[in-house]
């Protein structure tokens, strides 16, 4: 082949590749839509296979069928980015276990589930990271787990600095001098009756509200089979539990 033609071909190919690279770079630079202010998933669509949930199964499966998310086996973690409400953020779900062992949901910092509830073989617990490690308070314990019964779980985290100006006025102070979040956990039975509510303070949670950026569900250890009917995270005003729960006064 004529050398000149080959040279033109080579430079054309290089130019094409550079063009593709440039176009891809421009596309990558277009800002992301960002985290949503609230999420609600009733599992009527394939939210575990399309990237809506980040799913990390280890000897476990996550399946959506008939409007239910079923988590079976060993460990599986589902995470979802979330923009917290300036004042208060709620994480709530309708959950049941066909085989109890260990299930949790909550809100946290990337890769750190710092505040959450556990729905386990020995009861319902409210957990949070503290200066003395991860601590749990029981909302309800049981010797024979209520297999197959639906429950509503709700975790609330309250921002101690809802007014950003207050935070700005504090200036560049050490993070350990800032007030930490208030945590409230509540569990309701299938009729929406409040089973228990706790706001653990001994020891208090050590999470900073501004750091929260994800919500999660997870199972761990073996023989789990949990089903989730819906999952909500966002401001209290959008919490589906409002319509269901017979709330006792806070």
């Amino acid at each position: 082949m004529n050398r000149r033609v080959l040279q033109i071909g080579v430079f054309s190919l290089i130019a094409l590749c550079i063009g593709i690279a440039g176009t891809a770079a421009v596309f990558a630079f277009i800002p992301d839509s960002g985290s949503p202010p609230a999420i609600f998933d009733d599992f009527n669509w394939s939210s575990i296979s399309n990237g809506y949930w980040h799913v990390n199964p280890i000897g476990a499966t996550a399946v959506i069928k008939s409007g239910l998310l079923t988590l079976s086996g060993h460990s599986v973690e589902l995470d979802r980015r979330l923009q917290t409400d300036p004042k208060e953020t709620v994480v709530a779900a309708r959950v049941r276990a066909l085989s109890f062992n260990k299930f949790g949901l909550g809100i946290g910092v990337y890769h750190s589930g710092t505040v959450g509830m556990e729905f386990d073989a020995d009861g319902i617990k409210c957990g949070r990271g503290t200066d003395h490690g991860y601590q749990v308070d029981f909302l309800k314990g049981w010797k024979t787990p209520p297999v197959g019964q639906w429950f509503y779980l709700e975790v609330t985290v309250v921002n101690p600095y809802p007014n950003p100006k207050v935070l700005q006025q504090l200036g560049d102070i050490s993070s350990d001098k800032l007030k930490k979040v208030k945590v409230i956990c509540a569990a309701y039975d299938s009729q929406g009756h409040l089973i228990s509510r706790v706001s653990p303070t001994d020891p208090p949670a050590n999470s900073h509200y501004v750091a929260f950026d994800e919500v999660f569900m997870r199972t761990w250890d073996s023989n789990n089979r949990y089903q989730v009917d819906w999952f909500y995270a966002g401001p209290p005003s959008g919490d589906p539990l409002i319509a269901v729960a017979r709330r006792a006064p806070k």
Partner: protein
Amino acid sequence: MQVQTASAAPAAIVPRFASSCARAIALLLALFSFFFAAYIFTASADYFSTGDTTIRIEQAENILGRWGPDLNGWKLQYPNHLKKEYFDPRISLGRGGKTYSTYLLGQPLLIIPFDYFSSQLAIHERWPYGPTLLFFDRLVGPLLGALVALIFFVFAVRLGFGVRRSLLLTLILGFASSLWPDEQSVLEHTEVAFFLLVAFYGAYRFREQEGGWQYLVLAGVGLGGDAFTRYQDAFLGGLGIGLYLLLPGGPWPGLMGRVRRFILVGAGMLPFLVVDAWYNWVRFGKPLASGHHETVFGYAIWKGALGLTVSPGKGILWYCPILFLLALAGPRFARRYSALTVAIGFTAVAWILLYGYVTYWHGDPAWGPRYLYGMLPLLILPLGEVLNWPKQHARSMVWSLTAVVVAISFAIQFAAVTVSPWRTWYRVIAYEESQGYKWQWIAARYRYHWNIHESPLVFQLHGLYQMAYDGITHSSKYDLVPPDEDGILDSLSTNYAINQWNLWWKSDEFDWWMGRQKIVAGMTMLIAIMLASGVYLVAETSGLLEEPRAGKRLELVPEAA
């Protein structure tokens, strides 16, 4: 195309990269772009790995954000009963009772531009700040890997291997040696390798090619860069360079000539040493204080040296089998560059002996004998000889053997970068637990180094097979699932994506915060850059871009015996 000389008198002719300066620059730019893009493309999905890098990122952020050398907000407190071996050698209490890293400024300073860029990018793209910074800061690994490839290529061309063979040799270094997993790990050894190559290149250009005094200063800058990154490696490199400049040969003969050589090398090093001393003073109150409190030396040297070279769990020969080719290439290289061979050999031996004497010679938890990676490119340089093998000496057999060894070595590196090394650690720990041993993350107590049944190499290659099997058959047959209530294995399986491919675009970790569309855009961009630069490299080195000439075609001239 230039005449490719590999003659017996290398000082006489300085091999060139291309027929013009512009094309030489384009060639080097293409080479750098190719490796930088390829290394980013194969970057690890695991940006939590190596707390060492996380500490260096903290250093960079403290310098960038508040001009502070201490780790703001870190409180270092050890219970009184804690044994010395439990102390973390990476951080130490310094002036004002503050916590400082014992690490030097080398890598943190290079991280700063990445940190600034990613902090702006996270806001612009509305990505979560933490993972964005963790990932983009770690691109300092690919950057340094590409820089190593670049200076290595320049060195190889100047050694007279020819542009085409130098490119091939650089590809072998880049993808069939431990440089690949090393740059992926984002530890500081890639930076050490880069500066060490710069130092030797400067000394070589001065000595063998009479490049002038500025190359001695360059050699000093290289050693200074190493002193800015790892003291001990700068010391070892200094021994090698010192010997190289002492041996007979090169300009400026005699005692005074030698003194002048060392003065110029020292001049190159001086700024780095001054900053090192100042940084020590700022952190720990004395120019020579390092902040280290652990026992560094005391291991049986012979045991450590054998562990670093031939042990089934840590031996460099198994992690980087292309080094076996030195048996073929070494003597030929030594005939051409005897002083350089002596200097490289001396550096390598000193390196192995010194680290063999170090109590934590293995550098665990880490992939392979990481402390040796800094001098690895120097050992690979002579392999250009096997690519230049003369026809009359069974060339086809040598090339076939080389191809087989390179393929094996590539497979090992490929497994190392595509499968999470934590998957292998999981299996090492599971093996130990199956033997009734209670695992503790105390490197001095690891037992796997001399047991082939728990060699990370075996586990890693097997892991590649397992991941490929599960990927192709869409099964989870080889998912690693920890036993109930086994905290160590459970934390490994939940903290690291050990059941997923280790490439960032293949792991679902990035879906979470970067989004699939951005991942696809990033991959497309990187592949296109690799293609553009790769096509240019092939076209340039094959002579396609040369204008046809009348008359006799220039051929490669094999070196004299």
